[in-house]
């Protein structure tokens, strides 16, 4: 791809005691691109995104943001560098309103901590509308929203608070069919802005095919395949998803039981 990369991960190794969670991982993230990170459970996806979002620190290797080498000591450092992570649990409070969730922990206040509620309502409404939800009542409790809408709220929030790299941790995994499509649409809209790089972690081959521009496959802590959509044939993706095992081998194994 011609796009200039915004974030680059080089030779990252992460060890937890004797256990090597990630071994020599490279990753290239460019704005306006959806980068699908695929792999089976235990492949190291979670460890990798935790390193990118500052929760864990790499044992060795380096991360570059905007050409500069960075070291994230904590999630705050990562957020300051423009890394916005939307976890599976979304960090959303069900009983609170949309607006209060949107600004949770980063409320707009005037003197004495008084909330600028009208302004916050307006911003929350506009930001969510930009990526696909026109919700009517900003004082609506998030518990009354669908899973897809919550996902959108979390994404809109991350973008509003300055995310240049948006890490989406299995955003479609716990949703129904229709809501999955809504989330994919949301991701497409974010991609269309052109200034945000998206890391899309998923189990789902179909979803990744629908929206990803570039792929990285992890298995047992190593990158077993990477490339753009064009470079990888459809059959390849399925094989890599299964951790490098051939579908035929699997069939054989299953047949033997």
């Amino acid at each position, binding site marked *: 791809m011609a796009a200039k990369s915004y974030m680059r991960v080089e030779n990252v190794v992460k060890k937890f005691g004797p256990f090597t969670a990630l071994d020599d991982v490279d990753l290239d993230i460019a704005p306006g691109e959806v980068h699908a990170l695929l792999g089976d459970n235990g492949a190291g996806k979670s460890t990798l995104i935790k390193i990118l979002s500052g929760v864990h620190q790499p044992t060795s290797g380096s991360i570059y943001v905007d050409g500069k080498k960075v070291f994230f000591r904590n999630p705050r450092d990562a957020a300051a560098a423009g890394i916005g992570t939307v976890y599976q649990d979304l960090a959303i409070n069900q009983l*609170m309103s949309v607006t209060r969730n949107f600004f949770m922990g980063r409320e707009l206040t005037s003197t004495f901590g008084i909330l600028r509620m009208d302004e916050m309502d307006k911003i929350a409404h506009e930001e969510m509308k930009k990526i696909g939800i026109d919700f009517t009542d900003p004082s609506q409790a998030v518990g009354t929203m669908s899973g897809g809408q919550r996902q959108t709220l979390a994404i809109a929030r991350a973008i509003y608070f300055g995310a240049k790299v948006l890490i989406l941790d299995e955003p479609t995994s716990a949703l129904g069919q229709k809501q999955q499509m809504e989330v994919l649409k949301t991701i497409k809209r974010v991609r269309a802005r052109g200034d945000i790089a998206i890391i899309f972690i998923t189990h789902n081959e179909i979803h990744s095919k629908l929206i990803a521009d570039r792929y990285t496959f992890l298995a047992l802590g190593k990158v077993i395949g990477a490339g753009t959509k064009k470079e990888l044939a459809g059959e390849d993706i399925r094989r890599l998803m299964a951790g490098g095992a051939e579908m035929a081998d699997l069939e054989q194994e299953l047949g033997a039981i």
Partner: protein
Amino acid sequence: MTDRSESDRLQQENWFQRTVRRPEIGAFIVMMIIIVALAMASGGKAFNALGLKNNVAIIAQLGIIATGAALLMIAGEFDLSIGPMIAFAGMSIAIMLKWGLPFGLGEATPFLAFLITLVMTLAFGWLIGTIVVKSGLSSFIVTLAFWFFLRGLTEVCFRLINQNTNVSGLPDFKKESWFAEQMGGEVFGWFFDAWYWVGNKIAAGIEFTSDMTKSEKIDLINYLSFLNINRKMEQWVTGFDARLLWFIIIAGAAWYVLARTQLGSWIYATGDNKESARANGVPVNRVKVGLFMFSAFCATIFASCQVFDTNSSDAAKGMFKELEAIAIAVVGGILMTGGFGTIVGVVFGAITFGLVANAVFFIPWIDGAWFRVFVGTVLLAAVFANERIRKRITGGI
């Protein structure tokens, strides 16, 4: 594809529907029933001049601690140490007033006695909160430990310093100290002055005559009590207890903080899901510790009003008050699981409980223990109602 979107599925409601679905509505209805029932059963006596004053006194008293308990519950924690904290603070103030400041620093003024006590209770609140957030233990068990600790400590201090488990017969500090007057004196005298002024106009020409029978006299006294006039034809009640003002200040501030400030958002976020609050940068631990201190502050105000009102204190003060405060909060619509509720509901709850607690004075044939039967029943009903509200909100679409 149609133009229908997810948000269309949330029905738009008009003003009335919104009001009916408010979480405080249950507390409001119970309160109205109690007000009407009490007025009828007492022949109106519960709301004559003295009746109103006495009812408001206990409502304010319960409301002060219930506000502290409610904020803490919204943030997802309990405080069982409210009652013992009241006893401790009352002991501390009364003993300083009687025996002087600690370390022989001389006589204690009411304000100094209060201030030193407040420093101690806030320190206890801080300690309780810090233990809860650092250990990750349930606040139920930590504050239960402090329930015993403070109850015991209060009695020990009484015996060691005063050789008795109470202090009584203190001089009436309200006469000389402005501060003591604000705690134990009267406020809003204009309300009763105006009542008397109007009553006087209505009662013009009425007087007690020697040919009246005893029952006629009782009827007349009863009638005059609604005009704020006593049997000597003078003004009967001169003001509300000062704790009403404290209740208004504390509940008003708590309402404002919850509804309008960043701290309020943090309190809700902390109680709703503290992990997600923390992930978004809410200082969860500081919020909790601060609210344990606020609860201790409310208990101290409660105790201070009591000491300067009665000029006495004893080790049994504040008995069951922690449970009543929690019950009021729950009846007021605060969820046991935190993250939801309003101060308006708590005020309704406090009014309901205050009226029922006092009912025995206005309805002579009723057994005072019915109060607890009522509390138990309403509490259970409220928990069910709250649970329904929680499910409605978190059920999702």
